């Protein structure tokens, strides 16, 4: 029914709320990448020798690598020499003093719904705010210190806790890991650092909010979270960027380390600028996220809601090394207009009786292309390992695509694996049924999409589950007339 399809097409019209540019005085290094730039970044950050050497090793290795071509995404070649690798708001506040944050920056974050004012902030959430290449503010640091928790920008950690950084940096994602991780290792300029000491249950949600503001820059941040024995931390990241016609590169690395009986819950609400309706502009989100459940009975849980970016390439993974350790991956990825996503996870079972769960929900609308790519690997040592995977795809309209690439490698015959997959479509008849009960098309689609994502939203910290639902609504706004 052609009229029916056109109504669904009309649904694919959305406005990106966070596309504004703030007028912030920015200091940048010239575009291009070479050893001098890397030395300059390291010098700007006043880094110890080991950091510079590590960056240079990564850069030299990167030069020998080629961009991965296996993802199911297409984009013109990226000119790595035209990117600015360092851009920082000029009025850098003194660390630890929130009053000195540039008012324009403060306003920018207010507009994004993130208050840097501790009194106004959602109770129980500490925020590290990163703009372009640097962290501009971290809230609640003092409260956290009382519990021995370190939560600060990566730069600050390099200065104040170099031993921890040196010990864990690159221990989960080595600088040789892949093309984008190597690039990140060479040029990353900030990010968040968190260390939760033995036996401490972090009393609040920690979060980092990433904002790209400057034009023609790339953002390369690095996050490192270490949960010592018997500790627990829940961490959330969010991100947005202005609307621009050219593409911008975001290549981040996140490393998580969980020791014996420790648990890290890492949630992402990714809303980078997705490009316009014709597919112009948007962020290339090429990210490496990996956690190691190193200790016995440790647990790493990833939850992601991916609605932004022109292209998403990311596979938050778990190395399940400790006996009886647990890995989880809950994902909602939405592609609308001309967005492309190739996302999934890797669960590498090494320890005995390790368990993993994968729940992936892909939603495609407009001309969006959504691929799930996941690896479940059972090593010979992983006796009694178990995995459950569920991959569901939902299609809205008839011009989008959903693809699934599951890889399963089992080297121990005591392992048990289950894999379930479904593909469904929001039908005109479903929308009409809702309409006939008084529910508008938009609300009907939101209701069906939210129902589809329920199992993942359940995993998000409560305040953010509501945000995520709204975000999906906004991202699909106008995708049915």
């Amino acid at each position, binding site marked *: 029914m052609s009229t029916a399809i056109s109504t669904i097409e009309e649904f694919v019209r959305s406005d990106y709320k966070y596309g504004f540019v703030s007028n912030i005085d920015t200091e940048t290094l010239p575009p291009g990448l070479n050893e001098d730039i890397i030395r300059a970044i390291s010098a700007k950050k006043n880094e110890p020798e080991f950091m510079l050497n590590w960056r240079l090793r990564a850069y030299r290795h990167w030069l020998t690598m080629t961009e991965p071509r296996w993802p199911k995404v297409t984009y013109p070649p990226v000119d790595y020499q035209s990117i600015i690798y360092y851009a920082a708001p000029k009025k850098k506040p003194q660390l630890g003093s929130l009053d000195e944050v540039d008012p324009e920056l403060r306003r920018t974050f207010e507009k994004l719904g993130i208050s840097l004012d501790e009194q106004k902030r959602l109770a129980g959430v500490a925020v590290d705010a990163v703009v372009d290449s640097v962290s501009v503010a971290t809230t609640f640091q003092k409260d956290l210190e009382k519990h021995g928790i370190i939560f600060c920008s990566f730069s600050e950690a390099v200065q104040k806790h170099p031993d921890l950084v040196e010990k864990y940096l690159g221990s989960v994602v080595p600088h040789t890991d892949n093309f984008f991780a190597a690039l990140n290792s060479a040029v990353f300029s900030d990010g968040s650092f968190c260390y939760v000491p033995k036996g401490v249950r972090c009393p609040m949600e920690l979060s980092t909010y990433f904002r790209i503001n400057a034009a023609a820059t790339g953002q390369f941040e690095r996050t490192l979270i270490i949960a010592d024995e018997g500790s627990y931390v829940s961490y959330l990241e969010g991100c947005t960027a202005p609307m621009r016609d050219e593409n911008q590169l975001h290549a981040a690395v996140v490393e998580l380390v969980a020791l014996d009986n420790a648990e890290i819950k890492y949630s992402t609400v990714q809303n980078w600028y997705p490009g316009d309706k014709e597919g112009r502009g948007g962020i290339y989100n090429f990210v490496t996220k990996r956690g190691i459940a190193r200790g016995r009975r440790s647990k790493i849980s990833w939850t992601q809601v991916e609605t932004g970016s022109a292209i998403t390439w990311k596979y938050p993974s778990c190395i399940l090394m400790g006996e009886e350790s647990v890995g989880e991956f809950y994902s909602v990825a939405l592609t609308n207009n001309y967005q492309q996503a190739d996302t999934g996870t890797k669960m590498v079972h090494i320890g005995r009786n390790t368990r993993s769960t994968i729940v992936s929900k892909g939603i495609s609308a407009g001309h969006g292309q959504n691929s799930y790519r996941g690896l479940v690997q059972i090593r010979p040592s992983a006796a009694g390992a178990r995995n459950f995977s569920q991959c569901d795809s939902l299609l809205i309209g008839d011009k989008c695509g959903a693809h699934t690439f599951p890889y399963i490698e089992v080297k121990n015959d005591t392992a048990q694996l289950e894999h379930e997959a479904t593909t469904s479509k929001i039908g005109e008849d479903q929308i*009409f049924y809702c309409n006939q*009960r008084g*529910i508008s098309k938009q609300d009907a689609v939101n209701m069906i999409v939210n*129902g589809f994502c*329920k199992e993942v939203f359940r995993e998000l910290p409560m305040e953010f589950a509501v945000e995520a639902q709204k975000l999906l609504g906004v991202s699909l706004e106008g995708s049915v007339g």
Partner: protein
Amino acid sequence: MQPILEIKNLQAGVEGRHILKGISLTIQPGEIHAVMGPNGSGKSTLAAVLAGREGYDIVSGEVRYLGQDLLELDPEERARAGLFLAFQYPVEIPGVNSTYFLKAALNEIRKHRGLPEMDAIEFLGFVKDKIKLLELNEDLLKRPVNVGFSGGEKKRNEIFQMAVLEPRLAVLDETDSGLDIDALRVVSNGVNKLRSPQNAALVITHYQRLLNYIVPDFVHVLMDGRIVRSGGKELALELEERGYDWIAREQRLAA
């Protein structure tokens, strides 16, 4: 008194086929009208056009609902204004909880009527009796809309929704098809309980059987897109006895 529904010389079709060839029908408050006819006569098209399903083309004619131009309204606006369609084939909506769905629908209608929205607790209290009326299992409310419901449960669920939404005009599209005699009794009982001097119903059916339970004030026979005969409830019995051919023959003679 203002009629609830006034259809004047309605001609409509779908995908280039001319199906309704001039229908006129007026429904006053408190009345139940039955539209009967053989397969392919245009019964379901009539229901679809009234509810505003997409893909149907209105060729000519006029439909007024409570004095306003019905064909101007979007399907959800019609629903909020109190027009309810009990679907011949109720649609499954995986992932969407029945309670949530129905509460959202009720609140849209309440908003339209200028009433405050109901919260979850008020809503559960409100629907309790209506579930009993339709002899439905309360567990159905916890399941996704129509998913895993038996054919009979789906039909009863339609009437249950109607009981909750309290429409001014209910259009029942072959609600009796696929129902066994017990389910038919339950469904009819539900519809009868909802009869009131303010409301009206248009019951579309192929068989007279349903009309033993839901007694209509008027019966119209639809053939080849036209109402070829109207009468009281006895007309349904006559059809049951003599079949539709008899009217078809008379039609040909008249022509």
